[in-house]
């Protein structure tokens, strides 16, 4: 048992903290305020972060990345999220698919895409899974050919022709390369009839539709993808035809780290929001007076702060353990449980924070308002009943 960080881990953590404090925090509220969703994005912060390695840190060293371990990744996500949860996610989203490239792509595919990704500070990755009317069914596939993805891919010689739509796709409006789930055989259940493709932006017939107007995570871009006879070379098929779900979901995801990294990512990011709320609440309570005394003097404030820290430290312990388990290739339900937990804790902690900041008539502190909205994003990603039941199945696996 050892919770100490290695020097390398500590140094990434410190670099992330510095970047968060000096670069992210100063622009966080300002980006959040912008009302047009397409305009909240700021390439400048991405480029700066990329130069420090925060875009490519999950790429193996042999491919020019930093080859950091999961513990380091968790530490960095938390630090960045302390200053802005959405900006943290904009970086870590790339790691998720870096992991998938490393784990599932052929050498030839890696050669085609990884060097370009590593070299270009504005090269971002994404994955198109969700469709306008099939979110949960794709997350928990059932054995019915009528369910599953509707986006269709048909083979034409050396190419596949893709037709259909994706919705709520992270990084869609800003990414340069996407993994796309497409139905290649609708006569068999989704688990057998879905194929994963690599689709670069600029592919003919592929374009981005609307950018979604999220209530939280404003910075983070989330868009529609439209495929109208989009042509993708057969060389861009990831793994086997019909093997998408085996590659990325369920036990497959556990082996590749794709699914499991996503769980850790949400948990580590929520931890950053909680850290932010705890630190700000403590400072607020120790500097703000009510009735002539510091808020800190009040039992109720002490109990609220106690609960905020208690939940946050429980979450930190859990996140660090899960990150370590990933590094050890120990695959259990823990990553999923930590993700579910981060939803509950993130919301409870930000709500307690609101209660402490509380009374200010009809006004609301912008920072409080923002982290409440950011933390609420977990509700449909990490804490909904489908997420939880999916994790429960791993418990008994």
């Amino acid at each position, binding site marked *: 048992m050892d919770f100490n960080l290695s020097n390398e881990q500590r140094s990434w953590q410190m670099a992330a903290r510095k970047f968060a404090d000096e670069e992210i925090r100063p622009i966080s509220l300002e980006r959040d305020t912008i009302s047009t969703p397409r305009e909240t994005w700021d390439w400048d912060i991405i480029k700066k972060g990329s130069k420090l390695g925060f875009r490519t840190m999950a790429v193996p060293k042999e491919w020019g990345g930093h080859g950091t371990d999961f513990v380091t990744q968790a530490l960095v996500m938390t630090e960045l999220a302390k200053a802005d949860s959405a900006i943290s996610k904009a970086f870590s989203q790339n790691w998720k698919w870096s992991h998938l490239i490393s784990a599932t792509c052929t050498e030839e595919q890696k050669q085609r895409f990884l060097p370009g990704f590593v070299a270009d500070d504005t090269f971002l990755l994404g994955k198109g899974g969700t469709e306008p009317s099939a979110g949960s069914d794709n997350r928990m596939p059932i054995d019915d050919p009528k369910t599953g993805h509707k986006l269709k891919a048909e083979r034409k010689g050396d190419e596949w022709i893709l037709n259909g739509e994706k919705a709520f796709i992270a990084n869609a409006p800003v990414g340069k390369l996407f993994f796309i789930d497409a139905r290649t055989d609708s006569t068999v259940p989704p688990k057998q009839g879905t194929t994963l493709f690599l689709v670069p932006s600029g592919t003919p017939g592929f374009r981005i539709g609307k950018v979604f107007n999220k209530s939280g995570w404003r910075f983070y871009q989330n868009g529609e993808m439209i495929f109208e006879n989009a042509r993708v070379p057969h060389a861009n098929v990831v793994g086997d035809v019909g093997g998408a779900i085996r590659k990325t979901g369920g036990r497959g995801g556990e082996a590749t780290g794709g699914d499991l990294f996503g769980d850790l990512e949400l948990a580590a990011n929520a931890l950053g929001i909680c850290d932010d709320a705890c630190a700000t609440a403590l400072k607020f309570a120790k500097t703000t007076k009510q009735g002539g005394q510091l*808020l800190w003097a009040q039992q109720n404030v002490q109990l609220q702060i106690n609960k905020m820290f208690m939940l946050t430290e429980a979450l930190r312990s859990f996140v660090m353990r899960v990150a370590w388990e990933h590094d050890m290739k120990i695959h259990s339900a823990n990553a999923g449980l930590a993700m579910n937990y981060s939803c509950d804790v993130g919301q409870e902690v930000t709500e307690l924070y609101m*209660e402490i900041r509380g009374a200010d008539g009809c006004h609301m502190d912008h920072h409080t308002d923002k982290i409440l909205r950011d933390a609420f994003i977990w*509700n449909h990603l990490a804490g909904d009943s489908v997420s939880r039941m999916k994790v429960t199945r791993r418990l008994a696996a």
Partner: protein
Amino acid sequence: MYSLQLSPEQLEIRDTVRDFVTREIKPVALKADRLDLCDRSLLTDLLDQASQMGLRSLALSEERGGAGADALTSCIVTEELAAGDADIAAVLSESSRLAHMLFDQCMNDAQREALLPKFLGGDRYHLAFAGCEPGTDTRLGVNYHRPADTEVMVKTTATKSGNDWIINGVKDCVANAPVAGLFAVLVQIPGRPAASVLLVPADAPGLSVRAHDNAWQHGTCGEVTLKDCRVPAGNLLGDDAAAVLTGTAAPGRGVPLAQALNLGIGRAAYEAALDYAHLRVQGGRPLIEHQAIGTKLAEAAIRLEVARGAVWQAAWASDHPEAISDRSLSDLPLTTIAHVFTSEAVMKAAKDAAEIFGAMGVMRDMPLAKYVHDARVCQHSGDGNTDARLRVAEEIAGYRRASKSAMALAGE
């Protein structure tokens, strides 16, 4: 005799308003471009229509031209309106509440003669009470169970100059300020032991209103600046007006309009999720047939049902103090109780409803994110639930404060 039977009039007005909400309000209020909180505009045309239906003057007595609705009826109407649009509900319930207080309870004949026709004559003539001042701490907080060190004083002053009052000061978080035709302004007249209330028309010289952007309050509210604002001497309300308007007489027992509004928000979220759960198919069956979803919706239904009971109880009690004296009802601050319970029940219902909508539940241009935000605003209102519980705690402990003016300002 104990009875939960609504009167035919109550049932009818509920149906009428519900119908108005379904046919007129929802189609406009839930349009994507109007949902964005950044510029959620007040639906002025619908407010006009509602006024023509009598909802602006609902609580004003019948002999003075209103509908003479009691507190329960007002709450029923407010819930229905809020299920369509919390802002419309907020503006109307504030005008209606103040119409009853000002015209029926506080004004003398001369004042009423001068102002009532204006109020009745203009659908856009709303009312506002300018009580709160910037930076005033109204929390119980550290003074729980101890006499407050200092009395909260009204800083806005009114001084006599010839036949006029000259008012100076700033008021904040004044509900309806941007749409009010008439303000009741809480002022301190130097030399008087308690605060007083002056009637100030919106066009009085020296009165200016700055509407709040993006405020955490329903309806519309703003800051009111009174700079050498001059009103005739006759605009001073009687000595008891301050107590009536601030609710000092029975703290925690006012008409629970804000709580009814809150309930309407919760119901809208719950009903939207219930509808969606019938339509949306997952795993081959409608969502509602999944235990997990059914349970969430049932929990929301349970809490909203129980909350409605608490709101209606507080509403009826606010009109029937005799039922408290004869111990039919608890002597606790029932409106504060309804506030704490409802705001938490609705918050949970709204969040669970949003979850059922998946990604659509977190989109700023979709109804669910609006409901979640609206529910948060209610939780944040007043001095927050932590403070509300302390007020209940003082009541159960039998602690009596020397002065209640600080509490009164906090409202519910």
